[in-house]
């Protein structure tokens, strides 16, 4: 399996004390891409039936820390993006 890739960005370059900081982490993992499985059933006469399903092979987690320390609260998240907030 490959290592995930990630990038991170604040929504501002400078914050006032007490202001809400929003951090967006964009991440990708080729192993995490949903895998679609197609099932083909063939009977004795050659007739076929198909079915598909999607599975997540390699789910992951995203964590954030900072210096100086802040309490980072996770917000909305998708398979490719995670939002965290903390107080400046």
């Amino acid at each position, binding site marked *: 399996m*490959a290592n995930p890739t*990630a990038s991170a960005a604040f929504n501002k370059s*400078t914050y006032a004390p007490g202001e809400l900081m929003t951090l967006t982490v964009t991440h990708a993992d080729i192993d995490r891409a949903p895998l679609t499985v197609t099932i083909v059933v063939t009977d004795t006469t050659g007739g076929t039936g198909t079915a598909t399903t999607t599975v997540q092979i390699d789910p992951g987690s995203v964590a954030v820390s900072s210096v100086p320390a802040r309490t980072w609260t996770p917000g909305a998240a998708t398979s490719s993006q995670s939002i965290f907030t903390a107080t400046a």
Partner: protein
Amino acid sequence: MVSIVVTATVTDAGGHVGTASASATISTGIPTDAEMATWGQTTSTITSNTTYSGSGTVVNGVHFDGARVSFTGTDITLNDCIITGDTSGSPLVSVTNTAARRITLNRCILRTKTPGNRNAIQGQNFILNDVLIEKTTDGVSVAKSGYTASAANWATGVELHRVVIRKLARWTGAAPGDVHPTDQVTHNDGFVQAGGSGTILDRVLIDARPALQYAHVALVSASGTLYTEAQAYGLADNAPRTSVAVGSQPGGWPFVPAWTSNGTGKWSTGEMSGPDFSAMMILSSQGPSTGFVVTDCEFRGGENCINGGGNPWSTGVASLGTWLRNRFDRSQANQGSGPDDTNTARFSGNWAGHITFPTLGTDANTYVDGATMTGVQF
């Protein structure tokens, strides 16, 4: 400004890791040089020592040129003033009269005009908002006139909001009326409190390193050329720092040895921060000093940056107060056991359990780079 650096770690089910980082800055609220350049916008000049009495007086834009200011009244406000003091040893601003109450200075500059041992402001019951103090012996001296033991735990009535105290300077050693007549080394405190309770420091910067090219410090190049002030402050962190001989300058200065090297050879690790500087000197000569509220401040330099050894806790004494989100540099002359144990916060008086001074969490007091403080001496 404080930099904040985040690290995001993405881990998949197999333990494979991807990381990313991002940085931003958080303004500290401490005044910048650009902001301070807008203070002290004066429109008139007074050249004689002035005492304000009565109640409710507002003074705007006065340059007290070679003059001191005293107060005997209440609810008096000075806006956009520059006060340079006279040639005596008295503070530039005195709030020592027991009748003085609620004296407020806004957007003012306190800076000596003539060489001498004098503090910037002394007394109690004063509020400083957006004030620059520099080139004085001590910056803010909190003391109660006529103190007797029955007045212990007196309310200081002192608040400092967005105050910068820096470039402390000392001119003489064992001269009559000297601040410290017992020796001939530098003694400078950015803030000193003799006792009392309830002092507030909010977004205050105290830099307890000596003024360069002034008073007791005159640095020269390898060829013996006197640096300008800009050149002296622009020296590389580890540049050799050589001072002129005592008494070698016109007028006989410097009168005391410039500093005692701590052996590190770096400005950032306290090469010039001794022998007797402190950002905050907390004493109990007028009863215990208690109940501070010190938040979002920055402290630099000092032999010991905060020196509370003269104010020990004892049974029945109240809390030393609440100290949150303050930042400390590592330029103490007393480096302790290493770069992260630099005698930054040295209360040194059994205050554990009697002070709120977190070193972890959202309200942690930290080093200026955000690192966790070590060696806090309660």
